[in-house]
């Protein structure tokens, strides 16, 4: 389990440039995500061909993952293979555009899978059917056999990115809390999986209560809150060796709600002492924590802006929990949330344009987004209990915890587009909470 994880993290993918049959050109094949896509774009994903003795099953699996990624985004609809007029029988043969137009395919993805020893090479091309031209150059990705899903995610990321003009998010991982047991005796442990639920492994044992993990940009480290000492304390875990260490050693304090800085060198967290919770930062390698807030109110759930210059956090200094922004080194904070209800767990989008948050109002919970100046608040979800949003690597999707009510209530992971569409459950083997989505892997 440990070795698998380390292998996934250490994998280096080389993007090679095969000779494309025609010159690359930008066609009109384009989705503007910000407008909110109501009708998914019909595309044809030709079953990937096998080369040099690759197993047909592997090519099928890779095609299926690409299709699941693209359809799962809510932006694409794959045309069933049985509707194809001219099946792709050779990766390099010319595309019969008229045959794809006839079935209303806006785009066509073709590809092949080759195997050499333990190495898998996945090549693909994307065509704009109505422009009758390739959209971008053909690409190939190479990796080891146990990382075939990542190769498929890389292809899907390329297709998504070329058509939307946005970065992709499929080749990414999610660390979260896996939960078992009844509500009054819940056992929790850290787990990590691909964004789509595959390749799950556990990082801690169920005997110790753990909360709210965060994953570093390279996926190699996880910050979380652990009750291993009997008291909440921030720990740092190496995902390769599974070794853990305590982050800080503040006296008479409980620490929680950690978050990495964008460059991974600094940790923001909150610390409770004498009943008062304030924000601190410290270098991840050690040293003395710097106290960032001094108020007698609760200050918690801090998150850096992507450029590291500012911090958004939650405070009840006004009498109820609201969102505030202050300089990264502390100082005067300005309130940005003014709607009815209580606001918490703000998280700055990696694009910088939005802040996702949890909102509690009139007995319901919502995941919402607003601009950093507090304008443009939009609620994306509503339920008995939604919380702990985390951003997809491209800032277009928010994953969060949704918990059902009552004695049998349990949490699960869900995701929603920032337009509020494509709300869906993220597959996990059991109850799950507190997701933290990694950036795109290298």
């Amino acid at each position, binding site marked *: 389990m440990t070795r698998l994880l380390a292998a996934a993290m250490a994998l280096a993918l080389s993007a090679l440039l095969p000779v494309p049959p025609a010159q690359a050109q930008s066609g009109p094949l384009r989705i503007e995500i910000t407008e909110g896509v109501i009708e998914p774009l019909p595309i044809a994903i030709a079953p990937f061909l096998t080369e040099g003795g690759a197993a047909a099953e592997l090519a099928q699996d890779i095609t299926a993952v690409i299709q699941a990624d693209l359809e799962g985004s809510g932006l694409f609809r794959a045309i069933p293979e049985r509707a194809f007029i001219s099946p792709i029988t050779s990766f390099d043969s010319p595309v019969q555009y008229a045959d794809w137009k006839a079935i209303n395919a806006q785009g066509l993805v073709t590809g092949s899978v080759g195997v050499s020893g333990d190495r898998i090479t996945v090549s693909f091309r994307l065509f704009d059917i109505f422009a009758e031209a390739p959209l971008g150059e053909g690409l190939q990705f190479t990796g080891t056999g146990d990382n075939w899903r990542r190769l498929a995610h890389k292809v899907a990321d390329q297709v998504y990115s070329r058509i939307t003009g946005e970065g992709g998010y499929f080749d990414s991982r999610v660390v979260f809390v896996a939960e078992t047991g009844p509500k009054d005796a819940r056992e929790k442990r850290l787990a990590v999986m691909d964004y789509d639920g595959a390749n799950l492994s556990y990082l801690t044992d169920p005997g110790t209560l753990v909360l709210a993990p965060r994953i570093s940009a390279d996926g190699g480290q996880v910050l979380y809150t652990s009750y291993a000492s009997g008291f909440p304390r921030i720990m740092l875990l190496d995902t390769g060796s599974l070794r853990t260490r305590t982050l800080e050693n503040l006296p008479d304090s409980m620490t*929680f*709600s950690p978050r990495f800085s964008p460059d991974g060198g600094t940790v923001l967290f909150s610390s409770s002492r004498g009943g008062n919770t304030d924000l601190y930062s410290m270098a991840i390698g050690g040293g003395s924590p710097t106290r960032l807030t001094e108020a007698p109110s609760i200050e918690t759930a801090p998150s850096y802006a992507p450029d590291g210059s500012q911090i958004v956090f*939650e405070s009840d200094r006004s009498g109820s929990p609201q969102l505030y922004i202050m300089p990264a080194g502390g100082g005067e904070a300005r309130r940005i949330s003014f709607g009815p209800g209580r606001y918490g767990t703000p998280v700055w989008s990696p694009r910088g344009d939005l802040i996702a948050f949890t909102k509690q109002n009139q007995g319901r919970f919502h995941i919402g987004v607003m601009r950093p100046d507090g304008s443009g608040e939009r609620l994306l979800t509503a339920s008995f209990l939604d919380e702990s949003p985390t951003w997809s690597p491209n800032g277009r999707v928010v994953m969060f915890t949704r918990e059902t009510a009552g004695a049998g209530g349990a949490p699960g992971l869900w995701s929603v587009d920032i337009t509020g569409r494509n709300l869906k459950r993220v597959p996990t083997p059991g109850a799950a909470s507190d997701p933290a989505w990694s950036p795109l892997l290298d």
Partner: protein
Amino acid sequence: MTRSLLIAACCAVFALGACTDRFGGPGSGTGGAGTAGSPSDPSSPAYFQQAVGDRVLFAVDESTLNAAARATLTEQARWLQANTAFTAVIEGHADEQGTREYNLALGARRASSVQEFLVSQGVAASRLRTVTYGKERPIEVCSTEACYAQNRRAVTVLATGGAGA
């Protein structure tokens, strides 16, 4: 008839509450004395838990102590001063309304309110330690105010020896 039934029902609820609080006992990582001893022995942790009352309840989003809480804590302080072999960890808890992070901070406030009150009643601060569980350890699992009210609590968990690391 009706009245004695009512009393019996109350006792049952009380006993159940004491039994199901599996995290109020020696499971909280502090090597607690928990519920040891007989409830009829006034110097036993069982007596502290059941006769003195080991917990106080809070209003929504509040950490201030109401009159009932202060009365319970006054008795707790008296007991702790009479039984100096014990230390205590005060656990602060919240109901499930609210985010995980905010509830951790709220639980810390509640535990601290209890600690401050016990110290004000003469218990040495060095014998008390606080921990917050936020909304992680509910004792009642329904999602209505009847359960929430029981979960918004601070529990004084006895231990022998030091008050924890």
